[in-house]
């Protein structure tokens, strides 16, 4: 075993250390890694729990909301006793219980154009587990400007999507995939349309797997590929995500070169909550 591990680490991470593809070297990379998960909800739950278990050395979790009883059907990082507590407090307790040897950094705050650079700057990998369009575009643009990989996942009712946006030459970003958000009101929120409780577990686990692969440098990440998951039909499909040379953020001649007003971009009035926002984050 690597001399860099403590005896406790060798015991705790034994199944990764003996796993071809991770090994001692990969486990060291995980221990050195800093991953920020935006949102401590349905996607953030498995993302945080599996990355904590994997020994990601520094794990950030951002959410401004409090645990609601209606979250417990899918947000498995929170327990019944946590109802009413800030989600980052509840999530931090759970992550530290799973793995007390890692550092957990809670951000009990709203991600905005004003604080996004400062919050995302220290992290190696960002995982998008938010629940509304303004923050998804904000996180995309910020990671593009900072040159950080973004592990994207999104869910609705029975359908899930996941991909990896890796800033770089002719590599697609979220705006290449969906140049514009739907007009407010055209897509019902999970609060209105419902969501299959197991769905974020599956999609979040895919995001956690992709984060581990990015950190360890193993396998083929979902860069330039979008995984489409249909839980009702139990169907996984992979389609191409093309880089858009005309993309306003990552294209040949970018027209967006700094963070913008994402509420306005998504057709929301200033101060108006995104119709989808239930947990995670808002932009104001």
């Amino acid at each position, binding site marked *: 075993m690597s001399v860099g591990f403590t005896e406790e680490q060798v015991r705790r991470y034994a199944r990764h250390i003996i796993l071809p593809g991770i090994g001692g070297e990969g486990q060291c990379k995980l221990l050195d890694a800093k991953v920020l998960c935006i949102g401590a909800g349905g996607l953030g739950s498995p993302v945080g729990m599996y990355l904590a278990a994997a020994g990601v050395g520094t794990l950030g979790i951002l959410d401004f909301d409090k645990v609601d009883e209606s979250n417990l059907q899918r947000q498995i990082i929170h327990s019944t006793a946590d109802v009413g507590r800030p989600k980052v407090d509840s999530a931090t307790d759970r992550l530290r219980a799973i793995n007390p040897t890692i550092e957990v950094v809670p951000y009990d705050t709203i991600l905005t154009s004003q604080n996004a650079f400062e919050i995302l700057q220290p992290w190696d990998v960002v995982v*998008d587990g938010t629940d509304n369009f303004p923050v998804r575009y904000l996180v995309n643009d910020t990671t593009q400007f900072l040159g950080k990989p973004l592990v994207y996942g*999104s869910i609705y009712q029975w*359908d899930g*999507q996941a991909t990896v946006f890796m800033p770089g030459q002719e590599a697609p970003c979220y705006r290449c995939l969906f*140049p514009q958000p739907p007009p407010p009101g055209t897509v019902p929120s999970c609060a209105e349309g419902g969501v299959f409780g197991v769905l974020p577990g599956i999609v979040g686990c895919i995001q956690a797997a992709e984060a581990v692969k990015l950190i360890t440098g193993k396998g083929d990440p979902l860069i330039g590929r979008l995984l*489409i998951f*249909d839980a009702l039909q139990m169907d996984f499909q992979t*389609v*191409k995500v093309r880089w858009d040379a005309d993309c306003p953020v990552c294209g040949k001649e970018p027209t967006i070169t700094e963070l913008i007003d994402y509420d306005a971009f998504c057709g929301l009035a200033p101060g108006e909550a995104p119709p989808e926002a239930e947990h995670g984050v808002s932009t104001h």
Partner: protein
Amino acid sequence: MVRVKLPTILRKHADGEAQVDADGSTLRELLADLETRYPGITKNVVTPDGGLHRFVNVYVNDEDVRYLGSLETAVKEGDRISILPAVAGG
């Protein structure tokens, strides 16, 4: 007939079916036939002036039609057409 895979959000227009068949040799003809069979189903896919909405992607097999011929993309029996709306839930 070409098989079209529907996201959950559009299935309410198609009696809950996950996949439906439609006729046409281009994507535009296919979607028009789909609209005839299931009124309202393409309202949030095709714009009023006959383009594709930017928050919905359509794939022919694994390729985004925006990088093929958009609505004029040729389709044939055996192709798998997938409609994919942007969703933000988490």
